């Protein structure tokens, strides 16, 4: 019985991995992924950082938080509606794996894209801007964990009960409407230490705040909140977003989408 259970877990992990690898191969060069996942975070960074006196380390920590947030959370709202339209999502739903396994596979895709994109500013910073990283191990954990959490966040939008005919743009719209306010209330552009108490309370509502704070711990060696609290909250957010996406899938199946 125990062996059977263990085999099932291993099987499901292998299936999640197969879904992730397939998605990386199929979707890495699609226009919405390039636009929303690759270009947008860099545009945002330069829009808000040019002509402001920001140190290289602070800039890198900020850019890493932005890329993980936007790149990872773009995969779900792009890939799932595209697969629903082509009918390939049914292939995944009918396969012998749980919804959580499927969503885990999809989460890995967004996290993979985000991690890869994050490497670009990091490598540029390390090689050309003499950026020093206070805790490389923590930075690696932070980038991967934040990417996973934000990828799962994107899946929540991709899992909304909508018709299979719904266009990618119609899913991107609500996801953008939510992501942008979360960006502006977070501690990315205005550090938590400089915020008024009311703004600080609002910042705690944004998942990006904890990723930014953890990036600050990793790159600058100093953050506002406890690093363990940041880590724990990102894990909790990852699990919460996955469960929420799974619940939305169940609701879709009941409503008939």
């Amino acid at each position, binding site marked *: 019985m125990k062996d059977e259970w263990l085999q099932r877990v291993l*099987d499901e992990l*292998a*299936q999640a991995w*197969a*879904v992730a690898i*397939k998605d990386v*191969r*199929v979707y890495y060069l699609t226009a919405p992924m390039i636009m929303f996942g690759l270009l947008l975070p860099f545009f945002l960074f330069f829009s808000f950082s040019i002509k402001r006196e920001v140190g290289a380390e602070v800039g890198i920590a900020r850019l890493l938080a932005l890329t993980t947030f936007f790149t990872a959370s773009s995969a779900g709202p792009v890939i799932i509606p595209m697969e629903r339209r*082509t*009918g*390939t999502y*049914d*292939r*995944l*739903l*009918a*396969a*012998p*794996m749980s919804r959580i396994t499927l969503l885990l596979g999809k989460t890995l895709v967004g996290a993979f894209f985000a991690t890869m994109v994050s490497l670009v500013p990091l490598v540029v910073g390390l090689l050309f801007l003499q950026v020093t990283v206070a805790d490389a191990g923590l930075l690696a954990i932070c980038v991967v964990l934040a990417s996973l959490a934000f990828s799962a966040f994107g899946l929540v939008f991709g899992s909304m009960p909508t018709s299979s005919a719904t266009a990618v743009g119609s899913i991107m719209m609500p996801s953008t409407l939510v992501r942008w306010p979360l960006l502006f209330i977070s501690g990315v552009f205005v550090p938590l230490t400089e915020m008024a108490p009311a703004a600080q309370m609002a910042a705690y509502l944004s998942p990006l705040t904890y990723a930014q704070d953890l990036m600050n711990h990793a790159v600058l060696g100093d953050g506002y909140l406890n690093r363990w609290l940041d880590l724990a909250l990102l894990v909790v957010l990852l699990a919460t977003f996955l469960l929420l996406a799974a619940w939305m899938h*169940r609701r879709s*199946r*009941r*409503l*008939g989408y």
Partner: protein
Amino acid sequence: MTYAIEVENLTKVYGRPESGVLAVDHVSFEVRQGEVFGFLGPNGAGKTTTQRILTTLLDPTGGRVVIHGHDLARDAYPVKRRTGLVPEESNVYTELTAWDNLMFTARLYLVPRAERAARARGLLETFGLAEQRDVKVVNFSKGMRRRLSIAMAIIHRPTLLFLDEPTPGLDAQSTHAIRDLVRQMNVEGATIFLTTHQIEEANQMCDRVAIINHGQIAAIDTPERLKAAFSRVQSVEVALEPRERSEPSQEWGNALSALPGVKTVVKLGDKWRLYTDDPAALLPLLMRHAEGHGLRVVSLSTLLPSLEDVFLEITGQQVGTVHHETRGDGPRRRRAGGE
């Protein structure tokens, strides 16, 4: 009797149960182990909805489904491992090659690593895609995509295969390959659930046929018994020509439909088909009518109902609004203004 599928009071409402659209209305049926079961109905009848519930893509609003002895609501995993699904649209990954599509599906269905390549090669051979194994599917024709879609659905050797409208719009070669494969799988013991609105396909391939209309099962039986049961759609087919040289008249149809016992008259090329409850009584009347109107009977035959006749009768659609038709293996008819 061993059943592959048992469906009891299956109901599906799209949207909220209290205000949604009823698509499947308390449907009950069984599919026997090892049979080819046709699920026949017009568009919007509830065929695909039923099939999506049976393949766990939708939750029913009510009722119960048991497949291979497992209640689908509680224990879908063992069912999914033994089930293959070929949806109406060929859902293949166009950015991947045929080979990569097959290998991905094999991994998804947990085909043992050592067997994946051999099975994929065998299926590519079977479906005539071996030479295109490394070609991206975006370059495939519709028929090739369909064949690949079916190969992906059976790479894990399912014992129950769902096919949703497998052949419409395909070339003869692809249609032939698909029908052959279904027969072969069935011979090897697989149960086939074929959803179709093509009556001739159901007639040729199915052991039993369920006719669904407006979300309810109208009849279930073998194609032959369904036809026999509907004696009221028997018909007499007659070809007439004038004894003296003149063009055949469209007015003949009105005169024939006025004959006692004739329910409907349909013109089929150079022939007329007269639907009646009693062909034997109609034959002498028809002969007398021809004699009296200076017509010669070129050919005359009585016909049992086709499955299409039965289907139209059951689903309440009118026969007789026909202008012409083509002839194949059995009688066919195209309704004016219909789909």
